[in-house]
């Protein structure tokens, strides 16, 4: 059985899914690929929007998400963030 993902890992996974198809991914696809429950997914997406990691794009074909510079920075520096947080006990 796989180990339970922590908050930083879940955020990384969601951002990575969006990064993979930047600007063209729909909420249902993110939900499917991030492997989260509906409720948890909504919570994380709201937090990521609020904190400026992703932006919502609305068009005729529906809603899509893309990463902001902050989102890209997070995925690039993820390993450092995890190492710093785990060694200094900063997990939430």
């Amino acid at each position, binding site marked *: 059985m796989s180990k339970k993902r922590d908050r930083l890992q879940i955020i990384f996974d969601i951002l990575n899914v969006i990064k993979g198809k930047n600007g063209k991914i729909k909420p249902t696809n993110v939900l499917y690929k991030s492997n989260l429950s509906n409720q948890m997914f909504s919570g994380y997406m709201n937090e990521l929007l609020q904190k400026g990691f992703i932006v919502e794009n609305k068009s005729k074909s529906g809603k899509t998400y893309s990463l902001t510079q902050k989102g890209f920075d997070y995925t690039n520096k993820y390993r450092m963030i995890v190492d*710093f947080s785990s*060694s*200094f*006990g*900063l997990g939430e």
Partner: protein
Amino acid sequence: MEYAIVPHWFAGYNALLEMTFFVITLLVGAYALKVHRLSGQRQSRLFGISFLLISAAYLVQSILNFAASYPMAEGCSMQSMVAFHSLGTFAVYAHMVLFMTGLVTLAYMTLKIRDFGAYALFLSAMLAVLLLSANKLYFFYVLSSILLVYVSFYYLRNYLKGRKMSALIVFVAFLFLLFGKIHFIFSTDHGAFYVGGHLLEFVAYTLILTNLVNVVRGK
């Protein structure tokens, strides 16, 4: 207020060590705030703020000890001696308040609660005990030691959770900080404890710096 006994030969070295602690805690605090900016983690912000406060406390202490290591010029007026003494007392108070606020912020971070009222109560209770006590320096070291016992337990649990070397280094570092502060409790009686406290803190901050360097280098 009683003061710590500083051995003659150690005057100047203490300020140098405190300046080193200032730089290390400043680096760790700044890096924690960088992690907060990247991740949006609330705990990184609290951790960063706590280390920056501790850093400011060491800067004040270092400047004070540098100044104290120089003998006053001959023919110095009484007025300037009184002014120097007042400034020194203010610096000691500033160091204690900044350090205590930093430690309380760190302890609050480990509680993982979101309640500013609880933080304010916790901090005001600690500062009130510190500032209203008859022997402020003694109480400062005792209260700091109590907070460090709690923080060290938190880092022990953090290590046992994942058993990572980096978490072990941080736990051992906080243990050294605790032992250092316990030594300072007795520094009003004997100068050896003052020196011992500084050396133990030096080991602690070296370990914290080692961990930071490992994180930055991705080891």
